[in-house]
């Protein structure tokens, strides 16, 4: 057995000082030399633990083998046969808790950088015209409507089109991509990459109808009556949660959805060239500790804010954000105010927020999420001066579709009830997957659910 190489090849990044002032991609990606060196470290295990760790089951050892043998078209083919969106997943998947966690070399502390290699292969394809389109199954004559064009919708659409079904995707916004376009910032998920992967899905024969707010322009019942044989709901979790504390409607207080949508979808960072404005003030407080909070804080820096704070009620260990994103934010100059909870906002006579009253917290016994419950420290009230606040507490599913669909059961949290294995909902002919079922989660978990649903829809349409 050859000696194990435990030197994980690092990926070049823009320097923190420079990148905190631009919207260009932070992580620059491997070059050929990096990619070959990293791919060579893979020991091609017989027991494919990495594949088991991948929610969409990418044949990881095979694509790495093709890469290191210099057969890039084959690497692309292997990757895309399971994953229609590799350029996206290579960038935003939490590999450290998936394929890289289960990699045999992880025990030695140096798992193969599978995400970086995936990104390398996807980007290589973008720059080299290859015909990577898979053979489509013969047309079945069955029609499927997919509601939402985010990670779940695109994945379901691609898989169903490959299996020979006629797919139409309905998207409420004016651009396809869902959270990949409106939520995740350009510096983490360049929009031309998303566009290229959307174009790939379209090249499989999928039609995408934009500006189509399902529940308003049509209902799911009407889609079924009008000739669709099945419907997949991938409408995501688009409704912002607020703190519900006094003063939250003062000017200058944004939901993370608004802050990120203005910045990313509407390109407010290019105002006034683009028409949508945004304000990032002298003191910006982002409330929350997830990836969305990190994205909002890092956008605020790039928009020219003075000081940017992450205000989180638990400690660093409980932060749901990826460690890498927390590090990136910190390197760029975001200030962390942990174990801190806002209790009300103060404003001026023009209706603008001027300050935030907070309390300090300490960690008590674990709660139902298994994380230690934050408890208010008595007499710890203090006031922070702020002129911009971004509330990043998470999101819940938009009720527009569930409330207009007869016979579709939802939970108390507003999520759609669906079978975990098949994505089947309580309404015949209707499947669902992604954040609309789980509440806000990851891109890849939505894609995994969509893949399973597509398989179930395919079996249903073929009368199995």
């Amino acid at each position, binding site marked *: 057995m050859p000696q194990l190489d435990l030197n994980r090849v690092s990926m070049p990044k823009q320097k923190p000082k420079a990148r905190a002032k631009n919207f260009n991609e932070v992580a620059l990606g491997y070059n050929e030399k990096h990619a070959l060196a990293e791919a060579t470290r893979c020991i091609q295990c017989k027991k494919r633990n990495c594949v088991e760790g991948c929610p969409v089951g990418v044949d990881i050892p095979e694509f790495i083998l093709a890469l290191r043998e210099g057969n890039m078209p084959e690497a692309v083919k292997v990757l895309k046969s399971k994953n229609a969106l590799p350029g996206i997943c290579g960038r935003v998947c939490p590999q450290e808790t998936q394929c890289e966690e289960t990699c045999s070399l992880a025990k030695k502390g140096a798992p193969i950088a599978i995400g970086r290699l995936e990104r390398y292969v996807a980007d290589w394809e973008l720059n080299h015209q290859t015909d990577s389109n898979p053979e489509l199954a013969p047309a079945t004559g069955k029609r499927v409507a997919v509601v939402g064009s985010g990670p779940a919708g695109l994945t379901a659409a691609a898989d169903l089109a490959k299996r020979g079904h006629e797919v139409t995707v309905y998207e*409420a*916004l*004016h651009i396809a991509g869902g959270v990949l376009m*409106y939520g995740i910032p350009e510096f983490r998920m360049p929009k031309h990459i998303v566009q290229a992967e959307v174009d790939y899905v379209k090249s499989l024969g999928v039609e995408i109808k*934009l*500006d*189509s*707010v399902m529940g*308003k*322009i*049509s209902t799911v019942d009407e889609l079924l009556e009008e000739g669709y044989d099945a419907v997949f709901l991938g409408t995501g979790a*688009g*409704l*912002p949660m*607020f703190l*519900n504390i006094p003063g*939250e*409607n003062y*000017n*200058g207080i*944004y*939901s993370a*959805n*608004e802050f990120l*949508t*203005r910045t990313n979808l*509407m*390109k407010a960072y290019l*105002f*006034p*060239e*683009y*028409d*949508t*404005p945004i*304000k990032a003030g002298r003191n910006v407080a982002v409330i929350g500790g997830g990836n969305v909070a990190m994205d909002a804080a890092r956008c605020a820096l790039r928009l020219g804010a003075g000081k940017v704070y992450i205000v989180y009620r638990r400690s660093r260990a409980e932060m749901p954000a990826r460690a890498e994103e927390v590090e990136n934010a910190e390197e760029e100059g975001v200030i962390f105010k942990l174990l801190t909870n806002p209790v009300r906002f103060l404003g001026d006579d*023009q*209706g*603008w927020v001027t300050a935030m009253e907070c309390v300090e917290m300490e960690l008590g016994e674990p709660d139902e999420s298994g994380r230690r419950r934050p408890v208010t420290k008595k007499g710890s009230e203090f006031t922070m001066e702020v002129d911009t606040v971004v509330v990043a507490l998470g999101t819940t599913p*938009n*009720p*527009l579709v569930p409330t207009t669909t007869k016979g579709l059961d939802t939970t108390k949290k507003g999520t759609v009830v669906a079978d975990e294995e098949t994505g089947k909902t309580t309404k015949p002919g209707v499947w669902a997957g992604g954040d609309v079922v789980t509440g806000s989660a990851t891109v890849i978990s939505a894609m995994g659910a969509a893949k399973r649903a597509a398989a179930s829809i395919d079996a249903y349409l073929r009368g199995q």
Partner: protein
Amino acid sequence: MYQILTREDLTPEIHLFEIDAPGVARKAQAGQFIVIRVDEKGERIPLTIADWNREKGTVTVVFMEVGKTTRKLATLKAGESVASFAGPLGVPTHIENFGTVVCVAGGFAIATIVPIARAMRAAGNKVISIMGFRSKELVFWEDRLRSVSDELIVTTDDGSYGRKGVVTVPLKELLEGDGKIGRVVAIGPTVMMKFSSLTTQPFGVKTIVSLNPIMVDGTGMCGVCRVSVGGVTKFTCVDGPDFDGHQVDWDELMARQRIYLDEEKRSLELWQQSHGRR
């Protein structure tokens, strides 16, 4: 892309577009709105639906030139297109036989009140409409509103046409009169809706207003259109745009409408410079 089939200039600054949008036309109802984006770099703004034709598949919107987006929109001719046109959004106006309904509209909101007055009348109401303008040359659609109303009162601020004064004066007279008023619908500039609501409040006549805060997506996603109604935060785009005018926190709404005043001014000035316009 959504083609403008007809353009009409109702006044020098108020324009009507009939737009080819069969999907929206199929479902449009009185009181709903659409979100429009002029071009690829454009912002998303809501416009109330003024009319629709389900057979032709068209939707009519009326807008007034205010900032860059509406001025840019006003440069488009029939045959040209807008980049996005999404709807019908929001909850339709609640239509019921209330007996007598007073429909009050100010400025370009006349276009919004016409389908509501029409629907109220079709539901069996006696409809008394009040339309208010700054002055005579801004008056439009008097005939249209008259055709769907049992009575019509026109006011101008300067007295150049109809009665001199603001809409709340005849509104108050109607409330003080003999006839029982079952409902008031007031649509127009925020300040006009606020004062119409203040006028009706002492009489206890429920007054529905159609709010027009800043929006981005228009589907409940961003929350910029949040408004306090009866002390509870509502999203205008999905919970409204119609609300009980007696419950609305008007000062908060007006403050929130001013969030981007500086940016809007700058944006408009730059655009005017580069286009050599006033």
